[in-house]
């Protein structure tokens, strides 16, 4: 209750400021800054902000020691949307997405500044506990990383530690539903006790997705979830993402612009640690406003 209240109080004021800022930068870029110099511009083109967002990021900076990996990124993640993050390798997509559930805490020398709010609560506040945060904001990693345990235990682990199931049959149910959602149930229902690592790479990735959704997160972060998958498995995952959108917010990092176009409603383009452009997916791919975005999506580099 308290959080929702905070959010309402906070929301309109900040939004005004944001839109204000936005119109100004847009003018600046389009009118006065030549495209060649755009790289040096830290401000974002497009519409990084939405009404009634689930997550709000403001002026987020990430440093690995002295390396400034993410610069002044401000972005909202809406409810029931899939937001795709694209950009050339090493531009900081993974780094940014890992900020959203504080997975960067585990990296020595990684420092995050700025604000990231989940339902109005700054997740980098001192009193915020990362354990429930990560139950709320689940993550699927770039490389499939199932536990070296049985398929069943892989999926059941999260619900078990959070006490989501009252008894064994409830747990069985969670496992089955999660595996079904991840499109893996038919393939593994007869060998749930086999090791999760005995699956193929694509199956492992779907197992990791099942493991993530078993906890019932509200936001799911996916870091190139399909990079190890064949087109059929990719299709299944994309269907799953579309379905999950009904309940969750999803941020997905991808190198495939077709995929971004297929699954996402909004797309964010990163370049060397800057968030260059955010917009409706169809609009960003057909009419990019920024020169760098245009170069990237037309394949001139990256």
């Amino acid at each position, binding site marked *: 209750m308290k959080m929702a209240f905070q959010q309402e109080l906070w929301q309109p004021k900040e939004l005004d400021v944001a839109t204000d800022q936005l119109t100004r930068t847009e003018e600046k870029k389009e009118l006065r800054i030549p495209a060649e110099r755009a790289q040096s511009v830290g401000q974002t083109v497009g519409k990084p902000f939405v009404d009634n967002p689930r997550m709000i990021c403001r002026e987020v900076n990430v440093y690995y020691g002295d390396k400034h990996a993410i610069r002044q990124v401000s972005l909202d993640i809406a409810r029931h949307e899939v937001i795709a993050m694209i950009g050339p390798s090493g531009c900081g997509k993974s780094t940014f997405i890992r900020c959203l*559930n504080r*997975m960067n805490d*585990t990296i*020595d020398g990684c420092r995050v500044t700025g604000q990231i709010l989940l339902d109005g609560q700054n997740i980098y506040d001192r009193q915020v506990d*990362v*354990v*429930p*945060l*990560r*139950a709320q904001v*689940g*993550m699927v*990693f770039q*490389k499939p*990383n*199932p*536990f*070296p345990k049985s398929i069943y235990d892989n999926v059941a*682990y*999260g619900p078990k*530690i*959070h006490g989501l199931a009252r008894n064994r049959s409830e747990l069985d149910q969670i496992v089955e539903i999660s595996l079904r959602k991840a499109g893996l149930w038919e393939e593994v229902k007869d060998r749930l006790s086999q*090791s999760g*690592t005995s699956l193929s790479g694509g199956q492992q990735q779907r197992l*990791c997705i099942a*493991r*993530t959704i*078993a*906890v019932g997160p509200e936001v799911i972060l996916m870091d190139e979830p399909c990079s190890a998958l064949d087109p059929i498995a990719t299709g299944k995952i994309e269907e799953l993402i579309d379905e999950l959108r009904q309940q969750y917010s999803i941020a997905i990092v991808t190198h495939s612009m077709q995929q971004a176009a297929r699954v996402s409603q909004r797309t964010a383009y990163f370049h060397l640690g800057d968030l260059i452009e955010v917009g409706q997916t169809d609009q960003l791919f057909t009419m990019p406003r920024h020169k760098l975005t245009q170069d990237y999506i037309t394949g001139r580099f990256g």
Partner: protein
Amino acid sequence: MSRSIDIVQRGLKRRYRAERRFQRLGLAAIVVSLIFLALLFASIVHRGHGALFQTHIQLNVFFDPQILTETDLNAADYSRLVKEALYAMFPAVSGRNEKRNLSGLVSSGAAYQLRDMVLGNRAIIGTHQEIWVPADDDVDMIYKGALARDSGRLSKDQLAWVDQLHSQKKIEKQFNTAFFRSGDSREPELAGIWGAACGSFFTLLVTLALAFPLGVATAVYLEEFAPKNSWTDLIEVNINNLAAVPSIVFGLLGLAVFLNAFGLPRSAPLVGGLVLALMTLPTIIIASRAALQSVPPSIRDAALGVGASRMQMILHHVLPLALPGMLTGTIIGMARALGETAPLLMIGMVAFIVDIPHGFTDPAAVLPVQIYLWADSPERAFVERTAAATLVLLLFLIAMNGAAVVLRKKFERRW
């Protein structure tokens, strides 16, 4: 296009030659080390197998009620029973010297054997019994052929008596149960390793109970929780240093701290275990840290990603994966502790202890110290017992290393 494949072809022969050379070198190294190991084993077995058997002499003992007066059966003169039985077998023997020589054929342990029989069953008082008693170690050595008959250890008379016993089939080699069941003794034919084995067992139990949990906990803390700063660097350097400190230093520390400052009992497995735990700790810590480091970070990410706390991540995922490596390190450390003598000398575990220890504070010897003590003894019969004790120590080690392999197989997971 064809040029690079030509170059590859030309180099190919050289590459395969190098590979074969390397393989042969490795094979040769293994063969050489196996030969040395086989030589070691063969020589120990060759020297030690004799100790498996002990010459016994059959006596017809009359449990004389006049000697075994009811008043004090414990202190009765059992050796007289033995002597009387011998005199009865060789009625021709007379004269004090001859009689002394004759009774010298039988071990002084025979008297204890009779006492135990009487105390166990008083009904045998007044009866005649055929009993096998251990022969004296010199008789044993000459009968087994380990000593020459003309070595001077036995007189002519004694040799004749032994021959007579042999023709009567009243002397024979029997399995040496005493060696596996009793503690140390001044008489080789009575000396056994059970006391030392028990001492080693209790000592290692203390070592394991202390060093394993402490070592693992230290490694987990340093690896997973401790901030990386100059303090932890300092600690790391010190731990690595401790691993290289000569073991005698730990003995000196034990003497100064555990015996003198804390007043713990001397020669006790408790103190031995404490000292060896200190010595083993660095090995376990280093091995455990290496094992923790080898757990792939993706597993940690996976656990944290579903909302496991740090403790849950470590207990549920990291430790099970690191356990095989930790166990290997622990068993290597324990094996070293099992073979260690120097630090134990400092805390009095080198004492001559006959009684078999029954607890952690009873005075005890350990296997390597027992070997050292026997190797130092002048009697010929101790030579084979030294080798046999070494064999037992090696069997202990093989069992421990086997356990390590089994445990590692059991806990090892592949991905």
